[in-house]
């Protein structure tokens, strides 16, 4: 189930939720705030979204991943608001019988998420200043 939340993401709970008796693989991807970018020290990221559309796109990613790959379940969760270094802004969890499709699906979801979902992030820098991270134009 796709989630868009202003709270901290609980990667452990999201991962445990997809440990299934009928699956041999659980793969959990955490996209975390990195404290540097292009040589500048980053103090935080701040995310915003066009929430109803972003949630529908996250749900579409889950559905399409289940259709395209041999996986049994997947969840995509994105945090909004301020995310400090080392904390996850996005958690993708995939469960599958075999490991190959889990890797393929998880990677595909992240690639698509960055192209299709109306979410934006702004970097704040040590010493002041902030900038929107350059992104990808949505294609209709």
């Amino acid at each position, binding site marked *: 189930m796709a989630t868009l939340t202003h709270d901290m993401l609980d990667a452990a709970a999201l991962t445990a939720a997809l440990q299934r008796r009928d699956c041999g693989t659980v793969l959990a991807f955490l*996209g975390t705030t990195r404290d540097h970018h292009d040589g500048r020290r980053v103090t935080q990221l701040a*995310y*915003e*979204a*066009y929430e*109803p*559309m*972003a949630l*529908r796109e996250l749900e579409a990613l889950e559905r399409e991943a289940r259709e395209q790959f041999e996986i049994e379940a997947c969840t995509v969760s*994105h945090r909004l608001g301020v995310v400090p270094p080392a904390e996850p*802004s*996005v958690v993708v969890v995939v469960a599958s019988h075999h490991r190959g499709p889990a890797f393929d699906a998880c990677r595909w979801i*992240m690639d698509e*998420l*960055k*192209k*299709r*979902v*109306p*979410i*934006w*992030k*702004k970097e704040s820098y040590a010493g002041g200043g902030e900038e*929107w*991270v*350059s*992104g*990808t*134009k*949505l*294609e*209709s």
Partner: protein
Amino acid sequence: MQLNVLFFAQARERAGAASATLTLPDGSCVRDALDALALEYEGLAPLRSHLAVAQNGVLVRAGDALRDGAELALLPPVSGG
């Protein structure tokens, strides 16, 4: 027709507002809305070619017809994840 316009990220900052009400002649298209917004919010001009537009949550093209009462969202290049 009347539209509820939403500005996000750079568009919000450049417009100086998160939303606005826009009144246009019946039969207007997405391009007409962007033209009218560019007049009202000069700061949007440099961003215009980078914007995608959604009508009622669905991406639309410049020539697509607008619907009265629609929610029109101005979406800068996305950077989620």
